[in-house]
């Protein structure tokens, strides 16, 4: 192999680039994430088919019917999933849908509580607990919870999270089973989560409700087989959240746009860093080609 030191001109520049000190790459990566965060750069998103399908699924629910939002994640995945939860809650409330919150993950209840406090109450002050929304909280049992809910809602959740019997809650006093809901949305970071909702919820009563899901990037491979047949909508990672935010904000502008912009703000560093990675791969290959001795491959 020719020593890149002895190649001149532009070709030499690229050839030497191949052996660049990796700390320059580190610096570039650091800047590409730090600058968008500092400047709060927001780039336009082009909503993909999955985000559009999710939006359409929520839009198709008749006004005034009840939806179930299951918070199946914990703070570790909140960076990816909380923006989806915020946009979803705002979307449902803007369409006057009654919202029932629950969690299959122990810490999911906290996330649901936070969403109620930071999104639902400030943006939709008219929503009152008991008639417009209910927080059922967390129940242990993984997919078992879903199985019981499919046949008998009040057996799995005799009370809401505050200990109030279901019979005393106007919104749920006549609710029998999962068929009460027109839409089930699982914001899901793994097991138990969206996959279980499809298998045991939708599986038990296929035509009763639609399922949409927000998922982390890591576990999307497991959910793709269910979209779009058993799962009407699927939001993937921060990007899915950002696209969905665009759609929701486009139709239902929020009084406080900050709350609905988290996904897009987080997409800023993602976009720049991804473009950097792509550029690095291209540069690495140019460097390799430039460093080759003339007259063919080794």
């Amino acid at each position: 192999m020719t020593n890149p030191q002895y190649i001149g001109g532009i070709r030499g520049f690229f050839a030497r680039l191949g052996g660049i000190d990796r700390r320059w790459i580190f610096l570039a990566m650091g800047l590409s994430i730090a600058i968008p965060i500092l400047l709060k750069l927001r780039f336009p998103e082009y909503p993909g088919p999955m985000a559009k399908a999710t939006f359409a699924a929520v839009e198709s629910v008749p006004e005034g019917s009840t939806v179930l939002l299951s918070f199946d994640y914990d703070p570790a995945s909140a960076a990816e999933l909380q923006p989806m939860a915020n946009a979803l809650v705002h979307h449902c409330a803007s369409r006057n849908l009654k919202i029932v919150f629950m969690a299959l993950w122990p810490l999911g209840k906290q996330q649901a509580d936070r969403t109620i406090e930071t999104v639902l109450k400030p943006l939709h002050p008219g929503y009152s607990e008991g008639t417009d929304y209910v927080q059922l909280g967390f129940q242990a049992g993984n997919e078992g919870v879903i199985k019981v809910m499919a046949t008998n809602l009040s057996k799995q959740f005799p009370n809401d999270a505050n200990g109030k019997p279901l019979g005393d809650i106007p919104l749920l006093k006549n609710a029998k089973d999962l068929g009460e809901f027109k839409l089930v949305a699982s914001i899901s970071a793994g097991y138990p989560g969206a996959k279980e909702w499809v298998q045991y919820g939708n599986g038990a009563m296929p035509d009763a409700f639609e399922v949409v899901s927000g998922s982390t990037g890591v576990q999307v491979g497991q959910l793709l087989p269910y979209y779009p047949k058993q799962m009407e909508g699927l939001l993937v990672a921060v990007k899915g959240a950002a696209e969905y935010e665009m759609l929701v904000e486009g139709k239902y502008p929020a009084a406080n746009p900050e709350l609905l912009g988290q996904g897009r703000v987080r997409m800023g560093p993602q976009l720049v860093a991804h473009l950097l990675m792509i550029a690095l791969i291209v540069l690495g290959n140019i460097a390799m080609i430039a460093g080759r001795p003339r007259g063919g491959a080794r």
Partner: protein
Amino acid sequence: MMQRTIPIAILCLSGAIMVAAYFISSAQSWGETVTTWFNILAAVAFVLGAGNLIAMNLEKISSQRAGWGYAAITLVSFAFMLVVGLFKIGAVPNDKHPDIHFAGSYDSAASPFGWMYDFVMSPLTATMFALLAFYVASAAFRAFRAKNTESILLLGTAFIVLLAQTAAGMFLTGWIPEESAFAFLRLDKIKAGIIEHVQTAGMRAIMIGIALGIAAMSLRLILGIDRSYLSKN
């Protein structure tokens, strides 16, 4: 005999029992029981780990080897955390039993133990984890070079997936109508196709292979063919 035959017998027997228990209705909880045993054993073994950690660092300090000051930092932070945690110093008392000191939770955020976790351990581990963002960049630059078919496929797939994950992907191919015959050229479709079909297939075959590898490895151990874990003195 005590050093070779008995350990082999223990290994074979415990392995065979666990296999059999899986198929016997009344033995379903055995797996759980031995898992509990193992957790206890691992907790007891911490005495070995702690002993080793202390001995290694004390030796560094006493011999004044290069970097002995850091060994002292390790020892001091270890001792502090251990004492504060084991004796629940400053722990928040249990609501229902405020009189019983050890009933309080050892890791509540208001205790020194919790503070150390929140402000020392967790930022350190989270930052160490975050270093990966830098290393994926340098690895992509260095390793993704089109030298042969294999590396072209590796870098090409990574390239497509990376591109499809940004707005740039939608910008480039999002104009192709989803219902048209050319929809498969959309980057998001290509990405979904790769993940759903090729990657799933690859992972499935890897898993089948791994299962057979585990089976053969376990059988070698249970049948006493692989005995490399035994001292031969």
